[in-house]
């Protein structure tokens, strides 16, 4: 067991940090879903720490001070993304804390890490708690309070790692966006893997004489490190919703500015004016910038007034966002469910903060599934009339969620039993099936769901009651001639009906829907959702909506392009 950390051991610690993070970087990427669609924290942190490691990988008998300084410089230059920048500043602070030390014991480590925390906080203009800043600060505070001088570095790092994990778990309590997205802070998670690697190295578990070459990123961007994004996600008609993640290193030029007296504040003010998530600092003659902006060109032109670019990276965040649907999982093709099923179960638990109540709903049609996801449902199972999901489909959805109670909305009379069956088979959470027989009942119950009482029985009862108050009606083409409920139905006409009764028949789809609304006293409703099916025409549906709105002035009509099969219109009366 090492009593001191020297330059070579520090290099190995970085190397193992790189390896451990690399092994888990996709998991870290997946944590970053909201509100800023970076989705690449793992990549960014890995790239950053790799740049540091590469700078010292061939170290040979150099002092700790020298190795740490070189690694810090490498990271500073290689830093990508907010998380990368903060990581680089942690190591830069650590390096300055090792100043004058050829080796370090616990006392020196404590001092250096304290410098790391300080410098990391200085890196951002408005430090946010619940991020990796908190994680590193709390860990160092605890380790420095608990460790005694004759502790070994390994003992010191054991405390750090323990608190990193604990602090990481607490991040959703500090940052509500994390809680809402059901994740812990991605940067903090990246940091945890790095520290895990460093601890391994301290125990002597490092790969000597083998550079983790596959992790060696060049500073100027190596696209082989990750697949190109799916460019088809941003089409000729896409809108730029999230701007560009813009990062660069600018070397101030003597011909343009007085470098020694260059004031970074107006520069940083400008970035804050035209962008968000700004990280900007000056190291000697280099200015490092990370900013999210819809117009990177303006920033580049501005920056070039003071110097020239050393590196430059601009990424379309809308494209990234489209790749990382925020918040919830569609179970079909979900990788999250697979992750939870793998041996990495401990990770799944660590990374998805425990929810008391989670929700699973069944829906058919892309638009309807999206609607449920935006409602905040944790998992949507593909299914509905004539395509009932299996119990296994439910189990897969349950496994993707870490919750005490999972509220299940089957949304079809034929699916309730399957849901209950799956609930009986599942041991990971208490499954509560809300017996919603129609999509309307499910939507209505979910949109008013209130779990604040904390009592599952009460929540289920209330949800079932709200669901039962909603009326779901359908418009679909008739497949044969018939007389039902006194309505003369002709083949290929459109009939309007609820579960109980057929109300209207009309050769025109929209006319049938209109008459159906009239028959069901639309004027007495608060809200009517008009969900257009795969065969409905969006333009005609919008005409129908505005016609209904002028007929029934007090009722609010909302159109959703549901894309469901079978029913051309589903009408939800609330």
């Amino acid at each position, binding site marked *: 067991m090492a009593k001191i950390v020297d330059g070579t051991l520090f290099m190995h610690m970085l190397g193992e940090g790189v390896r451990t993070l690399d092994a888990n970087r996709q998991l870290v990427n997946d944590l970053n879903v909201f*509100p800023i669609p970076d989705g690449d924290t793992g990549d960014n942190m890995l790239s950053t720490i790799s740049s540091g490691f590469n700078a010292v990988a061939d170290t040979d008998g150099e002092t700790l001070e020298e190795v740490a300084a070189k690694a810090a410089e490498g990271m500073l230059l290689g830093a990508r993304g907010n998380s990368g920048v903060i990581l680089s500043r942690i190591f830069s602070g650590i390096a300055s804390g090792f100043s004058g030390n050829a080796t370090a014991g616990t006392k020196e480590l404590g001092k250096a890490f304290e410098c790391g925390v300080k410098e990391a906080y200085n890196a951002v203009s*408005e430090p946010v708690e619940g991020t990796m800043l908190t994680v590193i600060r709390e860990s160092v505070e605890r380790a420095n309070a608990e460790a005694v001088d004759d502790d070994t570095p390994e003992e010191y790092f054991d405390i750090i790692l323990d608190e990193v994990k604990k602090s990481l778990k607490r991040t959703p309590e500090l940052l*509500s*966006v994390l*809680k*809402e997205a059901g994740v812990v802070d991605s940067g903090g998670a990246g940091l945890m893997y790095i520290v895990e690697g460093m601890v391994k190295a301290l125990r002597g578990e490092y790969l000597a004489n083998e550079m983790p070459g596959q992790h060696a990123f060049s500073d100027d961007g190596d696209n082989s490190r990750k697949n190109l994004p799916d460019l088809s996600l941003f089409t000729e008609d896409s*809108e730029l*919703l999230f701007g560009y993640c813009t990062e660069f290193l600018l070397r101030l030029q003597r011909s343009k500015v007085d470098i020694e007296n260059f004031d970074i504040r107006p520069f940083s*003010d400008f970035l*804050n*004016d*035209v962008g*968000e998530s700004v990280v900007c600092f000056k190291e000697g003659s280099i200015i490092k910038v990370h900013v999210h*902006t*819809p*117009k990177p060109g*303006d920033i580049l032109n501005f920056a070039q007034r003071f110097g020239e670019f050393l590196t430059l990276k601009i990424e379309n965040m809308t494209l990234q966002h489209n790749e990382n649907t925020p*918040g919830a999982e569609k179970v079909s093709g979900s990788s999250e469910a697979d992750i939870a099923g793998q041996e990495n179960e401990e990770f799944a638990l660590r990374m998805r903060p425990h929810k008391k109540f989670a*929700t699973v709903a069944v829906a058919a049609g892309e638009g309807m599934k999206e*609607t449920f*996801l*935006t*409602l*905040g*449902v944790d998992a949507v199972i593909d299914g509905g009339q004539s395509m009932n999901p299996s119990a296994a489909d439910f189990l897969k959805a349950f496994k993707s969620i870490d919750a005490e109670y999972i509220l299940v909305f089957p949304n079809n009379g034929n699916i309730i039993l399957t849901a209950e069956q799956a609930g009986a088979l599942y041991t990971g959470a208490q499954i509560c099936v809300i017996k919603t027989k129609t999509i309307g009942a499910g939507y209505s119950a*979910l*949109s*008013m*769901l*209130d*779990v*604040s009482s904390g009592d599952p029985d009460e929540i289920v009862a209330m949800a079932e009651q709200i669901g039962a108050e909603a009326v779901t009606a359908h418009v679909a083409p008739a497949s044969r001639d018939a007389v039902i409920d006194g309505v003369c139905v002709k083949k290929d006409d459109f009939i309007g009906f609820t579960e109980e009764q057929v109300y209207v028949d009309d050769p025109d789809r929209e006319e049938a829907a209109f008459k159906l609304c009239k028959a069901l006293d639309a004027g007495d*409703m*608060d*809200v009517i*959702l008009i969900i257009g099916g795969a065969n409905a025409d969006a333009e005609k549906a919008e005409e129908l909506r505005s016609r209904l709105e002028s007929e029934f002035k*007090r*009722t*609010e009509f*909302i159109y*959703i392009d549901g894309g469901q099969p079978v029913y051309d219109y589903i009408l939800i009366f*609330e």
Partner: protein
Amino acid sequence: MLILYTDTDTDITPKTAAQYGYKLISMPYTSDGVTVYPYEDSEDLDIHAFYDTLRAGALPTTSAISEAKYEQYFEPEFAAGNDILYVHFSRAMTVTFDAMDKAVARLKEKYPGRKFYSIDTKGITTCSLGICLEIGDMYKAGKTAEEIVAWAEKEVLHFGTYFIADDLKFFRRSGRVSGLKATMGTLLGVRPLIYMNGEGKMVSLDSIRGRRKALERLAGLIEERGEDVEAHRVVIGHTDSPDLVEELREILTERYGDKFRIVVEATNPTAGSHCGPNAVGLCFHVRER
């Protein structure tokens, strides 16, 4: 002489400001990469066009103004021997007033004889407007700064503001409302009812299904929580939703006759960036916030 200041986040327009003797501090927003200082960059503001960009998917950001900017506003007044009373939007919502504090501290050193008063309306947009107009009345009636500040200390928390919003994505993004239901994503037809609490923060009170029901609930709050409502203005604010304003007015008239002094004003784009289009709200005199 006492000079009255307020900021554009209180929804006061230059025309109204001039009527009451207010000078305006412009609070900027940035949309599509362009930073706009309302009423400073141009005299007019096409509020409808602004909210249309939000409907089309724009997500503008807002930013704090700098110390230097505050100095630009205030220094000429101090230099001319005037004192300042600044009626501003909620400190709890922004860091901009830290910059203001620093600027004022510096100016006070330079002009030790001058006085600076500030009143935190503990609100923004519609809420602040109700208070601003009342203070404007007092200023016009020749009240001193001390009298106005003393009034505000007692009265600010009697200006209650309640509003309903249409799309939660704007609030979620800005993170400035607490108490939104955990499961609430983008809701169709269900509107959160939000109020401004005594700390000047927005808190979700309820969620209501249906436009009509939501408006009726808003109107009912006057009965439920109002106090001495007729003696003050009832301010209706909206983010480009004149139809909702009209419907709300009708409901108010149905319920209360025409006993209220109703003022309608559009919510400024900077504040509107945080709540999105199609929101409507009421500010009236309440027993307590």
